[in-house]
């Protein structure tokens, strides 16, 4: 390396984690900071462009929060969803830092609003960004411009020169030209690899072709691959990810929040054979929606159909695309290309198995089936009032968990348990340290901001 490299700190990826790192590095005194972003300016910021909230611990009422959400409860929640597949030190560090993240974001000009209509169950634990993730990113980029951080767009990183775990330089390919930037420290915040269908296929087989990618097409994991090739230690399984049920008619990439389908717990879900395969009423939808991506991925051709009747209209969040309708079950079956006889059978036996209680969608009510496989344990109501409505469902991948191992200074670990002296990672690319599986709403942002800020601070101190 030359004695005076181009930059003190280079950050790969301009999402929440990357911008947190860049802004913090500059705050901590690094004078030459560069953010390298693969996307053009209008779609900058990867999956962070689609987010809505941050999960934040607080001992007492704070900003948009009422009551408290203590470290102990946060940790219990995390332990439960991950089934223990988490690094406790890093997880607790994230939880403790979350409150500081919230305050820091406000200092960057990020504005918050109380929980959105239809998400009241999150009002105590999650702070919502006013205008969502794109507004959050706009605040970050505005601040970055104000304090003199360089940003280059449409510039995917295509190479990193690492010697002995130490970064020398980063190669960027723009308009077919390769450009090399030398740097004292490197923060990697390039997201997961969920937009890389080939890679998903390695983990999921041909089923991956039927996945819908909810977020940015730029999160293709190429940088993660570069790190793996350079000998970085990997954590997590390649098939672990956050995946929900999305409307099969949604665009392949980048449809964000609106493609989710919210009526599953109100009706039944059948597969291509017109048969049910899972308890639709197991728990409140917000607690269960994230298992349905995997459930559907396991069905033939990775497709399923949520079916409700007229009684349920208006009871769920409005969908992106109107439902497919039929005035009879046969008509609906035809519209969905399902076998009408089987669908009628499925619905008949479902209707007959219902033990009607008092329907109440706001509590775990006592309407359930009995003697059915699988049972529906809450909110079971007969499907018999036309028009019948259906939404075709596919697995929608939010982000993958497999990533690089880091320590509490966000330093990337290489083979032989050696920590890199100047390579740091933040965000989805290291979220697997904390999320071995499962998910807690708003944790992605908390991990990204916490480790973004840590890597920015550490990178600046290494460079300085």
């Amino acid at each position, binding site marked *: 390396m030359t004695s005076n490299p181009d930059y003190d700190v280079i950050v790969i990826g301009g999402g929440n984690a990357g911008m947190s790192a860049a802004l913090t590095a500059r705050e901590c005194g690094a004078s030459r900071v560069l953010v390298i972003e693969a996307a053009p300016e*209008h779609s900058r910021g990867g999956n962070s462009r689609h987010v809505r909230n941050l999960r934040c611990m607080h001992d007492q009422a704070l900003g948009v929060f009422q009551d408290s959400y203590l470290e102990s409860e946060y940790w219990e929640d995390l332990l439960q969803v991950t089934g223990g597949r988490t690094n406790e030190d890093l997880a607790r560090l994230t939880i403790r830092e979350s409150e500081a993240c919230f305050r820091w974001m406000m200092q960057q000009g990020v*504005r918050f609003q109380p929980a959105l*209509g239809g998400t009241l169950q999150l009002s105590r634990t999650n702070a919502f960004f006013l*205008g969502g*993730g*794109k*507004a959050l990113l*706009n605040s970050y980029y505005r601040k970055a411009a104000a304090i003199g951080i360089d940003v280059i767009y449409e510039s995917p990183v295509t190479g990193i020169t690492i010697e002995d775990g130490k970064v020398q330089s980063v190669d960027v390919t723009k308009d077919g030209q390769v450009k090399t930037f030398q740097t004292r420290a490197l923060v990697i915040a390039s997201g997961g690899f969920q937009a890389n269908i080939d890679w998903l296929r390695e983990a999921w087989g041909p089923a991956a072709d039927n996945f819908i990618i909810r977020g940015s097409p730029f999160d293709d994991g190429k940088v993660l691959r570069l790190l793996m090739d350079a000998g970085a230690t990997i954590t997590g399984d390649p098939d672990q990810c956050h995946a929900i049920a999305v409307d099969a008619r949604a665009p392949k990439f980048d449809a964000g929040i609106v493609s989710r389908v919210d009526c599953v717990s109100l009706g039944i879900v059948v597969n291509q054979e017109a048969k049910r395969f899972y308890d639709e009423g197991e728990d409140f939808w917000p607690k269960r929606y994230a298992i349905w991506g995997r459930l559907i991925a396991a069905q033939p051709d990775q497709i399923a159909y949520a079916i409700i009747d007229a009684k349920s209209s208006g009871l769920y969040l*409005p969908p992106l695309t109107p439902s497919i309708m039929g005035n009879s079950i046969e008509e609906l079956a035809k519209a969905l290309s399902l076998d009408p006889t089987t669908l009628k059978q499925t619905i008949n036996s479902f209707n007959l198995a219902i033990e009607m209680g008092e329907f109440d969608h706001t509590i775990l009510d006592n309407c359930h089936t009995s003697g059915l496989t699988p049972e529906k344990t809450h909110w079971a109501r007969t499907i018999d009032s036309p028009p019948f409505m259906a939404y075709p469902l596919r697995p929608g991948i939010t982000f993958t968990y497999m990533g690089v191992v880091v320590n509490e200074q966000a330093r990337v670990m290489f083979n032989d348990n050696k920590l890199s002296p100047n390579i740091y990672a933040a965000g989805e690319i290291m979220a697997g340290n904390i999320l071995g599986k499962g998910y807690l709403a708003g944790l992605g942002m908390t991990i990204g901001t916490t480790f973004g800020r840590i890597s920015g601070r550490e990178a600046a101190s290494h460079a300085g």
Partner: protein
Amino acid sequence: MQDKTKETQALMDEGERVMNICNACRYCEGFCAVFPAMERRFSFASEDLRYLANLCHDCRECYYACQYAPPHEFKINVPKVLTRIRRQSYEEYTWPAGFARFFNHPVYMLFLSMVIIPMVFIIFGVMEHGIDGLMQVYTDDQGSFYQVMSHTQMVSVFGLIGLYVLLAFIMGWLKFKRDISHDGTKITGWQDMKQALKDILTMRYLGSSGDGCTYPDENQSLLRRNFHHFTFYGFMLCFAATSVATVYHYWLNYPAPYPLLSLPVILGTLGGIGLIIGPCGLLYLKKKRDKKPSDEIQSSSDTTLLLILLFISITGLLLMLLRETAWMGGLLLVHLGLVMGLFLSMPYGKFVHGIYRFGALLRFTSEGRKS
């Protein structure tokens, strides 16, 4: 006509498409009244869209914040589509309906009120007094203005047209009210009236969270609200000046012109200054504005009103300074012509936004109380 209906239908379809996506997303809920009102609905008929459009004050926050803004394939541009629907709603409510086309061609209105009508005034003036007569110098004691146009003439011409304008407003309001209460919701009640009035007078929504709106560009700024305040309160002060003068004239038997330190002149001067600062500021911002979330036709409609107000104010202030010179006659006729132009343009231009926005906020308040 056929084309027009098709065009309107296409616009409403686009409005419905956009609102459906927003309703599935809701990220912008905290910006303004549009989103909470939208969330109370599952479908968006033209009436609903016109109501929502009149709740939107075009702050553009939701455009810059939108994860689906063009070039994303959803191409969501809420301010643009709502501004166009708002313009369509003005047309819809116009009385008599035939004049609705002015909303589509604001330039005609500009020409009419700033050129034709002042010219008519001048021509009448010249016909009555001759050019020399108009150039004559009068002192205040001679009741300068009324030498050019008698008080009775002024009162009858402006009174008559004023009544017509009032009628047009009332008819428009009735159409509007029928439209936005198509589902039977009542929109009048004292409590709501007070809240809506307060929201309007403080421009609560234009202030957003205290930092203003993203206008003229993506950075938040309070300039637009402040210039709007200058314009609105400037207008109100001028209105107050005229009202006080009317009281002086009829009840106190004290005709114009009034001395510089009298109440009507002080009010009028302050108002006039507001009507210079406000429109100049708004025009300047308009010139700098980001065109992507804008509707060009509405924009020229805004410009038309601003220019009329600005020139009324300039001629009015000049008139006050030069009223004892040879310029008085001509200036007065131009000034009165412009005021008449404003009167006539009011039901057929940007001015109506205040009325329908007030009505929309009224419905918003009563809706909110019910749910």
